[in-house]
């Protein structure tokens, strides 16, 4: 049974590599662009592989705590897969969102070109992400974390413009920098922990570690900063608003909705499953972490507020929202962690919806700036409704989903013994929520109520094809519904939080 875990990892990786190789060989034979027939085959193949792997991944994830030792990378360090609560949650969210985005991109990628490369890589990255969530020890996680960076990088430079290539390099080098900061921590944890296998509550050996607290705290802080790069935490967040907008919209959605969460996953794994929250409670590491997270929440919202380009605005919004999660994690309390996990799930659905809507607008009209979106509601009302629902959820208006997670985050901060952050945290979250409303609502407002602008505007309907709209509607619906029926999630996440704290 546990051997099956390899299937959702390697099936998409192999299938994706197959597509990539065949596209390279086809190019060498100077084959013409994709014919309609070949394109359909490619779509069918990618969809089949992805759906099979996603279903398998979810089924396996929910069929118990499986583990599998693949082989020994070094004498005492195996490549080890293990499914536990956190992994289960992440793999489910990733699989659902990834599949939805894939269906959307079948239509979208027609106008970007290079479809073989895109879908090949898209499948490979999915396999890597599943492996990342299944990872059972720190080194295995690091392995797939690096692979995730390397394989997702070409998605950013997809269109081949100079801007895109520079953005991809920025993404690559920031991520590498982060990975190496993380590795710095791993080196020290290897020395002072009894094992690198993820164990709720941590494996730090108090006997070994005594007398070396100073360097250990530095190492842990390096990990937070390093894995925080992917999560867009200050001070190494700058790649995110550069890289997410230049990627093709489905890739932006995947990056902003899913890949940034892997930074969060890495932080959860290292803090709650290796170091143990008690080791950093009350230290300068926790304080600095909270300060950085709150600053990111605020700055991200501010920058989003004054950003005129829609996709860039959404990218800044991601910066801000992921740090909600990080703040929840940094409070080291059960309620806050429940809130953080809820926000992981909700934000994945919300942000991918928003990016996909931005993509629809680009696909149909080529507009990128917010001010050009006046009257959008007359042209594509269904699309704008999806956007509006997702916005409501992100701002946190009940009963949409963001409200629930923010409620838990704020309550967790108030409960936790974290000094002035107990009230400062919720205040910053509130201010940021206002800003969120400020940067998301104008699109809806001006979209549905364009006002009278001199010449009589004639809005022509240009709703996107259903194959594009349905995945977006599904994601938007999830963003709302999960907020209406959050109880199973809250209970499950509460259990996870209780097991590690």
């Amino acid at each position, binding site marked *: 049974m546990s051997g099956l875990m390899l299937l959702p990892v390697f099936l998409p990786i192999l299938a994706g590599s197959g597509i990539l190789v065949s596209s*390279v060989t086809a*190019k*060498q034979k100077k084959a013409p662009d994709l014919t309609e027939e070949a394109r359909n085959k490619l779509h069918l193949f990618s969809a089949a592989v992805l759906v099979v792997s996603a279903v398998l991944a979810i089924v396996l994830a929910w069929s118990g705590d499986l583990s599998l030792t693949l*082989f*020994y*990378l*070094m*004498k005492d360090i195996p490549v080890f897969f293990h499914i536990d609560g956190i992994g289960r949650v992440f793999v489910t969210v990733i699989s659902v969102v990834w599949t939805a985005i894939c269906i959307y991109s079948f239509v979208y990628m027609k106008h970007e070109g290079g479809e073989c490369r895109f879908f090949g890589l898209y499948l490979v990255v999915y396999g890597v992400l599943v492996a990342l969530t299944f990872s059972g020890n720190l*080194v295995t996680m*690091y*392995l797939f974390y*690096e*692979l995730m960076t*390397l394989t997702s990088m*070409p998605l950013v*430079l997809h*269109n*081949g*413009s*100079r801007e895109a*290539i520079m953005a*991809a*390099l920025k993404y*690559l*080098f920031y991520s*590498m*920098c982060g990975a*190496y*900061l993380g*590795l*710095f921590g791993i*080196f*020290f944890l*290897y*020395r002072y922990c009894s094992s690198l296998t993820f164990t709720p509550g941590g494996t730090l050996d108090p006997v070994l570690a005594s007398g*070396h607290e100073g*360097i250990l705290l530095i190492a842990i802080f390096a990990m937070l900063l390093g894995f925080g790069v992917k999560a867009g935490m200050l001070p190494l967040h700058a790649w995110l608003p550069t890289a997410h907008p230049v990627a093709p919209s489905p890739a932006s959605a995947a990056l902003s909705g899913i890949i940034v969460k892997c930074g969060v996953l890495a932080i959860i794994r290292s803090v709650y499953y290796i170091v143990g929250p008690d080791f950093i409670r009350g230290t300068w590491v926790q304080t600095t972490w909270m300060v950085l997270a709150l600053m990111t929440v605020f700055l991200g919202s501010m920058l989003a507020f004054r950003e005129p380009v829609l996709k860039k605005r959404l990218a800044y919004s991601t910066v801000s929202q992921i740090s909600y999660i990080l703040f929840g994690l940094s409070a080291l309390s059960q309620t806050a962690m429940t809130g953080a996990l809820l926000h992981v799930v909700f934000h994945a659905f919300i942000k991918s919806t928003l990016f996909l809507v931005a993509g629809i607008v680009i696909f149909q009209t080529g507009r990128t700036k917010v001010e050009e979106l006046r009257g959008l509601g007359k042209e594509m009302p269904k699309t704008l409704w999806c956007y509006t629902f997702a916005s409501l959820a992100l701002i946190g208006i009940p009963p949409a989903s963001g409200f629930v997670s923010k409620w838990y985050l704020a309550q967790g901060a108030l409960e936790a013994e974290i000094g002035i952050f107990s009230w400062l945290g919720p205040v910053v979250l509130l201010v940021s929520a206002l800003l969120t409303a400020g940067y998301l609502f104008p699109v809806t407002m001006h979209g549905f109520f364009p006002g009278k602008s001199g010449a009589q505007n004639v809005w022509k309907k240009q709703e996107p094809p259903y194959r594009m709209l349905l995945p977006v509607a599904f994601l938007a619906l999830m963003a709302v519904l999960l907020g209406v029926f959050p109880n199973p999630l809250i209970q499950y996440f509460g259990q996870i939080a209780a097991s590690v704290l």
Partner: protein
Amino acid sequence: MNAAIFAVVILLPILAGALIPLLPFRNRTWMMVYTEAVVLLTSGLVFLTLLNRPEEAFVLFRFTGNLSISFRLDGLGTVFAGLVSVLWPLASLYAFEYMKHEGHEKIFFMFYTITYGVTLGIALSEDIVTMYCFYEMLTLVTLPLIMHTLTREAVLASRTYLYYSLGGAAFAFIGMIFILSYGSTSNFVPGGVLSAAVLGDKRSWVPLIFLLCFWGFSVKAALFPFSSWLPQAGVAPTPVTALLHAVAVVKAGAFTTMRITYYSFGTEFLKGTWAQYVLMAVIVFTIVYGCSRALKETHLKRRLAWSTVSNLSYILFGVILMTPLGLVGALSHMIFHAVIKICSFFCAGAVIYKTGRNYVHELNGFGRRMPVVFGIFTISSLALMGVPGLCGFISKWNLVRAAVASENPLAYAGVAALLISALLTAIYMLSISVRAFFPGRNFDMSTIQDVEDPNWMMLLPLVLFVILMFYFGLHSGPVVGALESITAVL
């Protein structure tokens, strides 16, 4: 097996190599066959020797008293000799194809083959005198290889190399005399040959002498401030830069520092002294310095050479930790870096050979036309950066494990330096791959119509190196276990 085999494996390539210009080869192919046969025969004999492991030493001749040229095989020597003898035949194969466009092949292969013997001499030396002699010989026989093209640049480079190496050897000489005077023997003994009783009040001299000696020997390993000869020597034909300046010569420098640190002076006298701290600081600095220079460099081979400077200091860092674990890290990086760097140099050489392009900014779009070479180049870059799954990660892990275990604050700084260096490596290596594979939307592929992958003689070694990189990266247990047993005697 008789210990005379040591003399055979060392002298065979030296003598047979010296004959190359004299023999009347009918054509180029015969010379190639002869050279490859000599090299393969030597490697075969080396493997036999390593498997049979003759216990006793072999004295080639005595100068006087206890000064002699003598050979013996021990664990450390096994690693170096094994490494060299695996890589040499592959590099020769590559050189046959490559040297077509360089000319003067007889002279080239003469010195190339002689160098093999001399390098084996260093690996198999029983005592510090023998090692010193071969170390000096190595300088002299590799000099003509750097000078090969006889351009002004090449002559200047070889002159720098000569001065640096001879100067370094002079400092090393001081250390040798000290060992001869105060050591219980000139042989290499695990743990060192000095004893407090013999040293008496000279004990306070040990750190200073060690510092000079270490720095002297590590000139060949391009330790700061004597690193600039290595990138300059990049003017040599690629088989030389790849094999000698990424493996044989520079690793001989690192190897000699291991010998004097662990087998002559002994860590007992050195650990915690100022000499250790000064050298460690210099080494940590070189790690970052080499990478930053690589980042600035736009000439492809020189960039790789600066990267070698940095990576050699990884090895020296392991050596200077002065723990058995440190030596395991150093040895594993010696092996793995050899495989990685020779591979990336061969890729660079393939580009130069096929297209004559030398600079990084000329490589736009090459990945589309030479997918195999640039694919392999990318894999070697990832290995060099230390991506898990490839061998570079294993050696980095071992080095850092030793550094963290030493609980020395300067070693912690070394860990940070290794990671900074890894980041810089990512920048200077992957930017080449990205440029090669993604030249941008407006790039005109017709400007590089002439670019294509080279033939099998050049590709075969590359493919083998990639297999080795993955093998060591995914299944490092046996190799690292063997290294641990070698260092267990310390």
